[in-house]
């Protein structure tokens, strides 16, 4: 599979069809996977793909990375879940389908965090998204690399995130409040969640709007709550549950829970799943006259 990937990348670079291949490579000690940017055909041997390739490389397609955009047309190595983010970027006009070459890779799951990998991919070190993955075969791609997967996701989503959401839903108000406060209190406002999210592409984030300061920048429970809730809200109907925010969080805040909660809400209320079809508008910019309004007096 890796050979196939390298061959294709080489071909694309040699033909000049793309100027850069955004992919995965090993670090110096060959223990961890890190993003690599290949611009020369002879360097394509650096490309790898395995169960450690957890990063969602689609962040490098956003306008935050002007220097990468300047190199020229990119090809991007993407798992099905990463392609979902690219699809959202296309629906939101951040990039054009024809401006990128998607090297879709079939995937049989990745680890939740690279540190957990001890030579074997066990179900318990895989994130919930992998257990319920419906895009192990890339759904939008220019080239599909790897053997076709015949995995069918369970009908009812399973996994830790979904169990925990059910558990929180069953809690009393004050128990939920305590649960979230305990987690949000640890927030150090490093904004790794935002920076790792390919859908957080605003050049000026709401938390940087300081006349007035809308969201407190201090490590105060009030600002922490506001930041995490408002970020989740800004991703409503857009989040594809790629899990990068939670992976990047240096203090282990279970951000997947809030984001998946909103994914479920959007699915139930508007029947929408983000990242599937690049020709459909995201749910928060359209509406239906028949939207449910039983909560409005």
């Amino acid at each position: 599979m890796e050979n196939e990937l390298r061959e294709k990348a080489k071909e694309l670079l040699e033909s000049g069809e793309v100027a850069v291949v955004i992919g995965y490579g090993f670090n110096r000690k060959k223990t961890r996977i890190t993003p690599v940017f290949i611009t020369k055909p002879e360097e394509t041997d650096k490309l790898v793909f395995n169960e450690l390739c957890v990063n969602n490389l689609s962040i490098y397609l956003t306008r935050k990375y002007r220097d990468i955009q300047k190199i020229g047309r990119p090809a991007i190595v993407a798992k099905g879940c990463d392609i979902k983010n690219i699809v959202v970027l296309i629906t939101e006009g951040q990039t054009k389908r024809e401006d990128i070459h998607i090297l879709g890779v079939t995937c049989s799951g990745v680890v939740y965090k690279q540190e957990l990998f001890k030579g074997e991919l066990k179900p318990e070190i895989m994130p919930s998204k992998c257990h319920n993955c419906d895009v192990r075969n890339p759904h939008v791609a220019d080239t599909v690399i790897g053997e076709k997967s015949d995995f069918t996701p369970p009908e009812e989503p399973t996994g830790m995130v979904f169990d925990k959401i059910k558990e929180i839903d069953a809690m009393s108000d004050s128990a939920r409040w305590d649960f979230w406060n305990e987690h949000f209190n640890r927030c150090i406002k490093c904004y790794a969640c935002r920076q790792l999210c390919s859908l957080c592409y605003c050049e000026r984030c709401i938390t940087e709007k300081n006349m007035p300061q809308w969201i407190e920048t201090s490590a105060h429970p009030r600002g922490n709550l506001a930041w995490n809730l408002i970020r989740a809200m800004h991703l409503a109907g857009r989040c594809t549950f790629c899990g990068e925010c939670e992976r990047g969080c240096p203090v282990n805040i279970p951000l997947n829970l809030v984001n998946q909660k909103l994914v479920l809400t959007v699915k139930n209320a508007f029947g929408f799943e983000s990242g599937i079809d690049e020709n459909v508008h995201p749910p928060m910019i359209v509406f239906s006259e028949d939207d449910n309004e039983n909560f409005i007096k």
Partner: protein
Amino acid sequence: MPEEAKIETEGVFEPKIMAFVCNWCTYAGADLAGTSRMEYRPNVRIIKLPCTGRIDPLFIMKAFENGADGVLVSGCHPGDCHYTTGNYHARRRWTAFKDLLAFTGIDLKRVQFSWVSASEAIKWVELINNVTDDMEALGPFMKFKEMNKKGPNQG
């Protein structure tokens, strides 16, 4: 004296309710209530915005942060929006936001949504009275007030 203690000794709790309303319907409705000399509970502070579509969820968070016990969001009935579709978009946003608030443990009685047209002065009066009753029954919103009292995590 802390607020909760004051309530116990003096038995007074005047809830603070923040109302975010649209300029064209609900505000006009509230205006009609005023010019018609209708009386309603004085606990509501109204902030007028051009359209419900302008009401950012952050406004609701800010209101709670600044001591509101309840928030009311109100605008034109579907189909009546001055800007044609602002309230439809707002409705979608609220659908998600209310679920998010509930998920964090905020009682949804604290955040109420309604449609009040420019002619519905009576509905407005009843709405405010009902919301005020609800907030009185719930008591002060201690979750945020306690959080405000807590200082930042200092070394």
